């Protein structure tokens, strides 16, 4: 096979390989040991590690929460209100941490979720107990100081209202005990502080009961209150109202639900008042309502809020190359939208994005994601709502990811230019020599007679070089490389001689014969 064919085949093969590799250039990692796993085991070296996270903090936190109920109830019973405030602050902080942890670990569907709801109700109950007990103390002191009969009646009514609140609060608290204890025992928690807290709560409520006869009778408050209907669901409007015996029409009646102001009503001409109360963000279960007119407290009425199921939907749309828009609706079973509710969007790597529904129950948010396939799910954790939690089905979306940026191309161009400049700088003799006009061959000159038999090969080569140089008419001051440029037809000869002369190579006999033939005016056979 001659050289041209072999060179052509090599060039074609090189071009083919480069083309094949170039086709893969967009994804240069051709193969990696992927997440290999079988049914029996997975290769831990290929599974991503994740930070150990807070899963081991979950159970100890539940233990802490139960312990806090015990200390808080005890300090309330002992009337050490400063410590009680501190304990309450700590308890709220722990509850907040626990709520965050439950959402992050995605365990709200288990009995831990039920524990969380009970804990929140317990916290509110204990907070109400603290405020009520403090107010109760103030009333007892006032009762001793005040002489005026009307004011004493007002104090009596308020005290009766407080007593009823504490009594109702205790019965709800005690009703939650079996379920909470059962869950706590499942996780091997210490339930003694919690059970003690129930006892302390009972004692505080009993102490309030004992005070009642001392005020002289169980006179019913002139301000009556009733809640109709006595139970409702999210979105329903209850009517809180009643009759105020002996009240002046036009007086302002303030209505409280669970110790928080829920609105005001004015007394009508016929001595009744009416306040519509819409059930919004309030937990399910029993609640208290009472009213005040000036200093007169009404009795306490209870009403029940029932839970309902919710449905949440999720739709994904692409906004640009890196962001995805998530929209959806949060509704109750019969289509009533839930307004102003917090919605969480969970991505497949565990991060959570928060959104809020507007007055139509629709939420919309944009999430920035890296390129690739992602699975998203919308969740509604019914924190503080009389609704059950719900989650949407998982939706997948493909994010295109960032496009090509121009910076690498600029870097490549700059590197090529720098390399070119560096290599040019090393070979300055390109320019001057090219200007020398190639000396034309003068045919017909007699070839010089040279004798190389008997000489060592390198010396023979030197002799032949000189002969050729003279034959071509190149001045003797020119080096072999200069000769190669001046007479390109014999470039091979001069290059070979340059290696022999300066790089210490030794020519073979064959080569010498070829060089001799060329030097003496033979063919083009370059060595």
């Amino acid at each position: 096979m001659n050289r041209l064919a072999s060179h052509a085949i090599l060039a074609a093969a090189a071009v083919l390989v480069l083309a094949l590799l170039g086709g893969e250039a967009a994804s240069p990692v051709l193969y990696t040991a992927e997440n290999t796993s079988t049914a029996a085991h997975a290769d831990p070296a290929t599974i991503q590690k994740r930070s150990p996270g807070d899963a081991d903090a979950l159970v100890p936190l539940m233990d802490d929460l139960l312990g806090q109920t015990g200390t808080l109830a005890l300090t309330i019973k002992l009337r050490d209100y400063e410590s009680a405030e501190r304990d309450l602050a700590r308890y709220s902080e722990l509850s907040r941490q626990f709520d965050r942890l439950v959402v992050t670990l995605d365990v709200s569907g288990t009995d831990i979720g039920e524990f969380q709801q009970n804990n929140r109700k317990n916290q509110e109950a204990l907070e109400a107990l603290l405020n009520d007990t403090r107010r109760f103390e103030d009333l007892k002191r006032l009762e001793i100081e005040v002489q005026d009969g009307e004011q004493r009646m007002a104090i009596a009514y308020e005290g009766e209202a407080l007593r009823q609140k504490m009594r109702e609060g205790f019965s709800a608290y005690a009703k939650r005990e079996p379920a909470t204890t059962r869950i706590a025992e499942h996780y091997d928690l210490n339930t003694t502080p919690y059970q003690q807290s129930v006892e302390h709560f009972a004692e505080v409520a009993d102490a309030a009961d004992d005070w009642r006869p001392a005020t002289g009778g169980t006179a019913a408050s002139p301000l009556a209150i009733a809640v109709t209907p006595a139970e409702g669901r999210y979105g329903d409007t209850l009517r809180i109202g009643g009759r105020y015996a002996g009240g002046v029409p036009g007086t302002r009646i303030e209505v409280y639900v669970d110790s928080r102001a829920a609105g005001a009503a004015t007394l009508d001409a016929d001595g009744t008042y009416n306040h519509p109360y819409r059930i919004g963000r309030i937990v399910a279960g029993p609640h208290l309502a009472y009213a005040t007119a000036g200093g007169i407290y009404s009795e306490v009425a209870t009403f029940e809020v029932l839970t309902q199921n919710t449905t949440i939907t999720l739709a994904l749309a692409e906004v640009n190359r890196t962001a995805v828009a998530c929209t959806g609706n949060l509704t109750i079973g019969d289509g009533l939208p839930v307004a102003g509710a917090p919605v969480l969007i969970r991505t497949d790597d565990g991060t959570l994005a928060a959104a809020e529904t507007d007055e139509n129950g629709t939420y919309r948010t944009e999430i920035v994601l890296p390129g690739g396939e992602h699975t998203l799910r919308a969740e509604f954790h019914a924190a503080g709502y009389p609704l059950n939690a719900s989650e949407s089905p998982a939706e997948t979306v493909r994010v295109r990811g960032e496009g090509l940026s121009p910076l690498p191309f600029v870097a490549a161009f700059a590197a090529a230019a720098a390399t070119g400049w560096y290599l040019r700088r090393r070979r300055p003799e390109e320019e001057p020599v090219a200007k020398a006009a190639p000396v034309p061959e003068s045919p017909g000159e007699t070839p010089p007679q040279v004798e190389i038999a008997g000489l060592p090969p390198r010396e023979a080569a030197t002799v032949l070089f000189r002969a050729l140089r003279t034959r071509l008419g190149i001045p003797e001051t020119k080096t072999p490389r200069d000769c190669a440029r001046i007479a390109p037809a014999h470039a091979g000869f001069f290059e070979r001689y340059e290696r022999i002369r300066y790089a210490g190579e030794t020519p073979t006999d064959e080569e010498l014969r070829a060089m001799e033939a060329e030097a003496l005016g033979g063919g083009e056979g370059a060595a």
Partner: protein
Amino acid sequence: MIRMAGAKKYSAAAVLAAWLIIVAFFMVLNRTLDLEVFFVLALIGLLVVAVLIDGAFSRPRYMRYIGYLIAAGVALFAYIVAEKILEILAA
């Protein structure tokens, strides 16, 4: 039979081929075939071989155009490096 003239050229090519085979062997052993890593190691091999066979006093024909090849290789190398830096900054 290996030709005498151009023996250096052929041994240089053989060494470069052996280096590429060694690199490929270890990549297969490591169960990861990454074109960018292979290209960078091949470029290093080419640069080393070019420096070693380049004589100070002569420039054979096969060394005349190696400058262009090296420039193209360095350009692609700069592209890969810039891309990796952008990847690290974006993360």
